[in-house]
């Protein structure tokens, strides 16, 4: 078991860390307050190759390794969870192509994403089909060399800003999840409608969209895998992306803890820094231990994804479950460590607490992770 990053990974991490400190961290509060998609950060990530991390070199990218993706997401999330989602969703929206695409599809669809010219999104959830993905209503009907899509998707991260969208739809109206197929929509040729959801609890700069498809035409060449193979693909993709949500949760927790740790060292009460009180010290010790445990689970899961290990489903679900529960608890405690100052927007920790909550919900709620883990255990 290897706990060390490669030289290349260290170099990528250091580059990201510097960019985040200089360019992302100063924007984080404003992105949250205005709830606006940070197009400037997307551009920054594109220019610096960060959006190319999810792709191997032969498709125009710089890595393709889950460990490297997680490292990038974690570094960005330390300062700004919204910005970290730009990389996380680039990975999520690209995995279906990388996992199920033909060589021709990968060569054609990946380079504009790897260069950052476009961002990707992944559209699985519907209003009546969240945790129960098999209940989806979106339909794709084949006419000659193309499919026509009709339906709606809900809670699609970056669905309004993406240039490339992977959509799951029923191709066999009489079937259950075995009739679901996956399609790649490119905005220029298969435009979809999107409306942004307003006033979210957290990740407020990340546009969460409702998507509507009214007779959207998609070339048959953009179907990923066989007809009916979509559901299996959707799950395989989530297995691979879950460590990334774990990494996001990890980064949020680390960012909050870093701030709170500095705070307790200088905040004086009863004639000494509050870090001198044992009650505070016990909180610090518990927080640091939980972060450390989550970090190992996240990178263990990422390593399994890269190795295509047979138990990656279980470990990826554990990493997502544990790291996101940890982040919620840790950020709540970090607000507590700052007291009243933790609750006001002049300090970053309340934002981090609001951002943490979604990591327990999206890419499979933590209830679903438990179902997945239990199923793997009882197989």
């Amino acid at each position, binding site marked *: 078991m290897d706990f060390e990053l490669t030289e290349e990974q260290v170099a990528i991490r250091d580059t990201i860390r510097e960019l985040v400190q200089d360019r992302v961290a100063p924007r984080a509060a404003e992105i949250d307050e205005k709830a606006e998609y940070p197009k400037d950060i997307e551009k920054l990530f594109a220019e610096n190759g960060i959006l190319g991390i999810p792709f191997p070199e032969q498709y125009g990218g710089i890595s393709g390794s889950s460990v490297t993706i997680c490292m990038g997401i974690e570094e960005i999330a330390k300062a700004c969870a919204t910005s970290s989602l730009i990389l996380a969703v680039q990975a999520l929206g690209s995995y279906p192509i990388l996992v199920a695409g033909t060589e021709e599809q990968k060569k054609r669809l990946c380079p504009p994403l790897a260069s950052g010219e476009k961002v990707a999104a992944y559209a699985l959830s519907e209003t009546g089909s*969240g945790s129960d993905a098999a209940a989806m209503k979106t339909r794709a009907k084949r006419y000659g060399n193309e499919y026509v899509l009709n339906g709606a998707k809900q809670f699609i991260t970056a669905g309004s800003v993406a240039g490339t969208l992977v959509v799951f739809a029923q191709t066999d109206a009489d079937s259950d999840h075995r009739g679901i197929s996956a399609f790649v929509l490119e905005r220029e040729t298969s435009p979809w409608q999107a409306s942004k959801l307003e006033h979210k609890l957290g990740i407020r700069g990340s546009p969460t969209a409702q998507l509507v498809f009214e007779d959207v035409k998609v070339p048959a060449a953009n179907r990923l895998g066989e007809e009916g193979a979509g559901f299996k693909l959707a799950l395989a993709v989530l297995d691979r992306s879950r460590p990334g949500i774990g990494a996001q949760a990890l980064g949020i927790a680390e960012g909050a803890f870093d701030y709170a740790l500095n705070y307790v060292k200088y905040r004086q009460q009863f004639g000494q820094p509050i870090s001198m009180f044992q009650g505070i010290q016990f909180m610090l010790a518990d927080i640091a231990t939980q972060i450390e445990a989550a970090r190992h689970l996240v990178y263990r899961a990422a390593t399994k994804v890269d190795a295509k290990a047979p138990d990656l489903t279980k470990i990826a679900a554990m990493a997502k479950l544990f790291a996101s529960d940890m982040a919620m608890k840790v950020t709540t405690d970090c607000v507590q460590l700052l007291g009243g100052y933790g*609750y006001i927007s002049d300090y970053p920790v309340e934002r981090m607490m609001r951002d943490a909550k979604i990591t327990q919900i999206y890419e499979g709620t933590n209830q679903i992770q438990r179902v997945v883990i239990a199923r793997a255990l009882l197989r």
Partner: protein
Amino acid sequence: MRELAQGTVKPLAEEVDRDHRFPEEALAAAADAGLLGVLIPREYGGAGLDPLAFAICIEELAQACASTAVIVDVHTSVGSEPILLFGTEEQKRKWLPRLASGELLGAFALTEPASGSDAASLQATARRAGGGYVLNGTKVFITNVGQAGMYIVFARTGPDPKAAGVSAFLVPSGTPGLRVGQVFKKMGLNGSPTGELVLEDVAVPAENRLGAEGQGFTVAMRALDSGRIGISGQALGIAQAAVDESRAVLAGRGRDQGDDFLLADMATRLESARLLAYHAAWLCGLGRPFTRQASMAKLHCTDTAMQLALDALQLAGEEGSAGGSPFERHVRDAKALQIYEGSNQVQRIVIAREVLR
């Protein structure tokens, strides 16, 4: 009470939160219903009810709107009750009827930038001048700031650098030199203004000193003891709303055992918290010692509200975290309760001290 909360207060809750707006209509309705004088005896224009009735009132309000609940709670307990407990007959006659009717909203100004949990180290001063005092200093995290008609302000009158040097004063808004500083943008409780209160050479007559010189810290601590009962009630209201909304979510979709177990834990935890709070209120009403029970209630009820708000949002899933959903609002509101009127760390200090006594 429930009718007022559900009929008038609740429909405003979403807008009050979204627009960061003081819920004037809710306060007016509360005043009409006599809710602003729950703890004030009838002879001073109040309803003369006991602390248990007060806790239940705040609980009902918080179930509808946590911002409205904290405004009424701070007004009724720490913003008015100290006059009842420590005021002279003349002070009671002068202030209580106006507080009970809602003509004046009360507020409590103890915390300072460098003096939070360590309240005895406060720096604001009250210098004797002529027949009265001149107050200087900056208070922070003051609930009802800018809306209150009267602030109970704590400041140093004596040379003792600790608790024994502190006195309490009744300072009406509009007194020259008294002004509102920064009003904070917060995570939640957006309808309830929180901010700085700045005192620059504020002249206060001697008749507005509450209690003896040097008794201020005792006034503050006693006010906070029963204040914790109100905060417990507020926490119970948020927690109850979280449970009720979770039930509604689960009624609308297929449940599995994981949902049932979570709901069972939520309901059990809420029940234990409620009994702890009601017991503390009951003891307080009987005039028995209740410091330990009130701290335990505040700690357990507010931790419960935070956890249940998070659990309910988890059950609601992504729809719950979208704006306008009560689920995400409860999470943002609940967090404040673990912090104010004595952070939960301070409650543990109090409880340990009481247990080891």
